[in-house]
C-alpha cells in the first residue's frame, strides 16, 4: 500500500474535527457584508471587527477609494505580469519613489505581499556561506525566508541582547569574515511588544552584522512620521534594511523593502519571490501610494494608542490575565485552557465581537490568546461595547469573578 499524502495531517485534522460546529468554529467565519473598517455583518448580525490589524482604518478612506477607483478605470483590474515582464507601470515606480521619500532612503523595492518581501529578501541576501540570526518569536515569513535560503540559521532568545551577543560572538569566533544578517521585528504581533532596537542594533554592529527590521506592525503606528520603531527609538541609521507591508496601516496588500545599500537594486535581478509572481494591481498601488502619504501627515497615531490603552486598561481592571498593557495597538487576554479559549471566542462572535483566537504554535510561550488589534477608526462607544461583552462572557465562563465591573 502506498502512503496517503494526507496521512501526516491526521493529528491536526483530529484537533480540527473536535472544534465546535456552527458559529463557534473559528475557521468557518465569513463576512456577509463589510460595512466599514470596524464593522461587518457576520452570521446575520452587525459585528465589531476587533482583530483586523487595520490600524489606521484606511480601507474605506475616501481619498484612497477615489485613487483606487481612478486606477481601476484607467489602468484595468490587474497587470497580469511580473515586475520584470510587463508588470511594471509608472505607478509602481511612483510608489517606490514615495517609499524612498517617506523613509529618506536611496532604494525601495515593492513586492506583491509582505510575506514575499520577507521571504525574498532574507532568502536572497543570505547565501550559502552567510548566517541569518533571527529572534525566536519571529513571524512565519521570516522562518520561511530562512528555510528557503541556503544560509546557516541561528536563533536567539526573544528580545534578549545578551543572548544575541553570545551567538554573534560564537559565529565571529569560528568564522571571522562571515556575512551575517540579524533579523528583528519592530513590534511582535501577538503581544505587541517592541524590540529593544537600540541594544540589539548596537550589538549587531559591534559584530559587524547587517540588520533587517520588519516594521509590518509598526509602520504608521510608531515614530514621529510613522516610519516605525526604528524611527521611534532613533536607530534608523543603524538599520540596513527595513521591511514593511501595505496590508495593515496602509489598508490594502503588498510589501516592500527599503535600504541605502549601494547595490540594493541587484535584488530585482536575483530575488525569486520578486521576479516570479505578478505585480500588484494598479488600484492597489494607487491606494497604497495615497495611504502612505496620509499616514505620514496624520495624527491618527495618538487616537489609535488611546483606543488601545482604553481597552487594555478596561480588560485589566475587570480582572483578565493580560499579555499586553496598551503600549502598542494590541490587546491580548491570556486564557490558560485551550478549550476555554475556543469557547470564549465562540461566545464573543455570538455577542457581535470578532476577535482573533491565537493558539500555539503561532503564539509565544504556548499561550492561548484572545487577541484584539485596535484601529484608530474604533470609537470609544465601540470599545465600551467590546469591554462589556468581554466581561459578560468572562463571567459566564467563570474566567472572571461576578463582582467585576466596567471600570
Amino acid at each position: 500500500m502506498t502512503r496517503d499524502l494526507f496521512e501526516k495531517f491526521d493529528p491536526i485534522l483530529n484537533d480540527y474535527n473536535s472544534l465546535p460546529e456552527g458559529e463557534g468554529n473559528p475557521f468557518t467565519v465569513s463576512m456577509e457584508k463589510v460595512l466599514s473598517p470596524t464593522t461587518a455583518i457576520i452570521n446575520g448580525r452587525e459585528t465589531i471587527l476587533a482583530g483586523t490589524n487595520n490600524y489606521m482604518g484606511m480601507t474605506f478612506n475616501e481619498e484612497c477609494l477615489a485613487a483606487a477607483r481612478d486606477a481601476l478605470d484607467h489602468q484595468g483590474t490587474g497587470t497580469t505580469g511580473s515586475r520584470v515582464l510587463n508588470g511594471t507601470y509608472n505607478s509602481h515606480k511612483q510608489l517606490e519613489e514615495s517609499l524612498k521619500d517617506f523613509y529618506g532612503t536611496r532604494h525601495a523595492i515593492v513586492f506583491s505581499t509582505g510575506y514575499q518581501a520577507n521571504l525574498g529578501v532574507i532568502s536572497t541576501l543570505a547565501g550559502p556561506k552567510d548566517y541569518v540570526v533571527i529572534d525566536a518569536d519571529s513571524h512565519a515569513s521570516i522562518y520561511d525566508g530562512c528555510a528557503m535560503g541556503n544560509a546557516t540559521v541561528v536563533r536567539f532568545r526573544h528580545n534578549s541582547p545578551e543572548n544575541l551577543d553570545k551567538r554573534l560572538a560564537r559565529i565571529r569566533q569560528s568564522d571571522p569574515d562571515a556575512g551575517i544578517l540579524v533579523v528583528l521585528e519592530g513590534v511582535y504581533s501577538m503581544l505587541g511588544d517592541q524590540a529593544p532596537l537600540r541594544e540589539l542594533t548596537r550589538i549587531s554592529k559591534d559584530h559587524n552584522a547587517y540588520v533587517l527590521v520588519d516594521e509590518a506592525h509598526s509602520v504608521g503606528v510608531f515614530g514621529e512620521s510613522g516610519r516605525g520603531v526604528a524611527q521611534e527609538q532613533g536607530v534608523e541609521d543603524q538599520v540596513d534594511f527595513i521591511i514593511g507591508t501595505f496590508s495593515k496601516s496602509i489598508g490594502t496588500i503588498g510589501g516592500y523593502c527599503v535600504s541605502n545599500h549601494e547595490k540594493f537594486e541587484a535584488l530585482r535581478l536575483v530575488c525569486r519571490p520578486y521576479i516570479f509572481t505578478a505585480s500588484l494591481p494598479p488600484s492597489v498601488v494607487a491606494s497604497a501610494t495615497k495611504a502612505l502619504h496620509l499616514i505620514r501627515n496624520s495624527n491618527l497615531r495618538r487616537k489609535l494608542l488611546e483606543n488601545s490603552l482604553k481597552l487594555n486598561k478596561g480588560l485589566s481592571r475587570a480582572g483578565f490575565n493580560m499579555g499586553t498593557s496598551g503600549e502598542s495597538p494590541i490587546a491580548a487576554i491570556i486564557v490558560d485552557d485551550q478549550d476555554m479559549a475556543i469557547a470564549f471566542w465562540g461566545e464573543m462572535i455570538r455577542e457581535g465581537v470578532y476577535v482573533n483566537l491565537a493558539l500555539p504554535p503561532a503564539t509565544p510561550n504556548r499561550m492561548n490568546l484572545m487577541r484584539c488589534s485596535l484601529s484608530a477608526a474604533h470609537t470609544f462607544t465601540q470599545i465600551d461595547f467590546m469591554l462589556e461583552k468581554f466581561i459578560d462572557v468572562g463571567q459566564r465562563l467563570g474566567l472572571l469573578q461576578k463582582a467585576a465591573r466596567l471600570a
Partner: protein
Amino acid sequence: MTQTEDEIFERICALVKHFNIKNIPINQNTVFSSDLELDSLTVMDLLAEVEDEFDITIPLNILPDLETVGQFTTAVHKLLGNQ
C-alpha cells in the same frame, strides 16, 4: 578539551530533564517528538540551551536530522570537533 560522546550524552540528558514532563527514562533512542512529546518550538528551545551549555553554534538547519537524543549527542560531538 575533548569530550567523549558519553560525557556529552550525560550533559544533554541533564538539560532534557527540564523538558521531560512525564519523567520517562531517557536513552540514546529516545525520540523528542513521540517519546517526549516535544513540539518543534520546544526542541528549538532545548537546542538553545545545548548551544549555551557547550558554547557552540547549532544551526537550525540540522534540526530535521535531530530526532533522537542520540542523534543530538552525535551532532554536538561533531560540532565541538569543528568549532
